[in-house]
């Protein structure tokens, strides 16, 4: 995964950042994402670990506390900005799609 890819987050990345608005450890985040998406998005432990390591390295997440061998992470200001940017991008995508759909409907009628 190249550095540039972080400009557009993948689905697991996006949901992980959403989950981490509240400090959580990896498995907690996995469960949260699965229940929040009604089981549509499942992140495997290997994928979760790789994402957490990557985000920690990129200073998008930071360790907040430790519970035994579990690390609890929270979003950094950089992570929050990244998430907000992604949400804005998705809103724009949706708005564009709705506008284009409306225009197409009007054109047809």
């Amino acid at each position, binding site marked *: 995964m190249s550095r540039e890819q972080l400009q557009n987050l993948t689905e697991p990345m996006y949901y992980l950042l959403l989950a981490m608005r509240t400090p959580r450890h990896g498995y907690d985040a996995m469960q949260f994402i699965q229940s929040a998406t009604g089981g549509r998005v499942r992140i495997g432990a*290997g994928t979760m670990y790789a994402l957490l390591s990557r985000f920690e390295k990129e200073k998008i997440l930071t360790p907040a506390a430790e519970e035994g061998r579990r690390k609890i992470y929270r979003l950094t200001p950089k992570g929050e900005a990244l998430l907000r940017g992604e949400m804005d991008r998705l809103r724009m995508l949706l708005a564009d799609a709705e506008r284009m759909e409306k225009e197409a409907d009007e054109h047809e009628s």
Partner: protein
Amino acid sequence: MKVEEKRVWLPYRMTEPEELAAYFEKMSAEGWQPVSAGRYTAKFRKSRPRTLRFCVDFTPASGEEALQRYTALCADAGWRFRLKARDGWLLFSSKKPDAAPLQTDPKLAARSFSRCFWGNFTDSFFLLLLWGGWSLLDLGINRREIVRYLSGWDTMLELCVVLLFALVALFLLGNAAGNLAGYVSARRAMKDGARLPEISQKAVRRRVRWRRALAWTAGILLAGALCYDIWAGNVRPAWEQWLSMGIGAAGIAGGFACKRRWLEGLARKFCWGAGALFLALGVLLSYPLYRMEPVSFGPDDPVITVEMLLPGAELHQDEREYGHTPLYERWEVYQSGSVPVSENLAEGETVSFLAYRAATEGIARRLAWEEAETFRSLLHGTAVELDWGIDEALWIGDFYLVLRDGEAVIAYTDFGEPEERRELLLETLAKIRRAP
């Protein structure tokens, strides 16, 4: 309770993770749980048959702490960590048939796989280079004397080691090519999130057969060569070495005989440790022979001629074979009775007088015997007696003579501590001159 373990050849490579996982599932169902996995083999322990789901994972959790964190996360997700293989891949098992797979992002999975693969691929390549270089040295490309001392193959055993190097190098090359081909197709499939290509059972059986054949060939070749060398007299350890290596071998054999439960396996470890120590000691006992430190003799030193050293000696130029080493030109000093007592390993007019300073009496005895045996093999049917005894062999050095105005004079010696050697050498030469 007796713990039953076995080590088997791994039929699959790390580039075939699905087959590898299925293999562990099959072994588990047959009552064998994995204990460890090397590059080509895996160790299993007998247990009751269990239906488990296995997963081969490539997440780069390097370092003990990272691995613990990762395995804790996997344990929360229902995957129990079983082992980290020598190749870097991790093995997990789960009792839950519906546990979420460890990797859910194909691109991330492909990236981890790539990192794991290349890390090990370069390792193997480096090893291959190292072995190739050593083999070239052993094959005698560099025939300088110091290299021959360090890597020469005067015995069948050494020659067989060279042959084995070549065999292993071929095996590694073939394995690397197979791994590379497997890597290319596996990575492509992983990136696309597609199913990995299947491996034919015939190819797998052939792979295992080759590995087994190589291991047996190596064992038979080495054991055969060692027996031949002992029979032919190429390897003649001193009795101290025989004793030390015998104790070492007995210790290692005893370690295998020890039950794992005795003192929680400590008895076995102690036997193996002591065995390895004695084996190493047996080999190291001959180490002092290979110290080479030149000593110079100046113009004020007494001129000692070959005639003075060895009355009746004659100088000859000859080409001969020494043991298994190739023919080379050398100078020899012949004493009356045609016993060669020196040879030239350098160029021109320098000749060297062969004598030794041995660190122990055992080694001195061996050297004296080897020297006599060499002369006997060179001079068939001639009775050969060495002109120095054990006492002299304990300290005599290897020194060179230079032809100066038709006479051979001492130039330098190159064994032992410089100052100590010089004194001892002069003293001994005086003794030899006094000898009838």
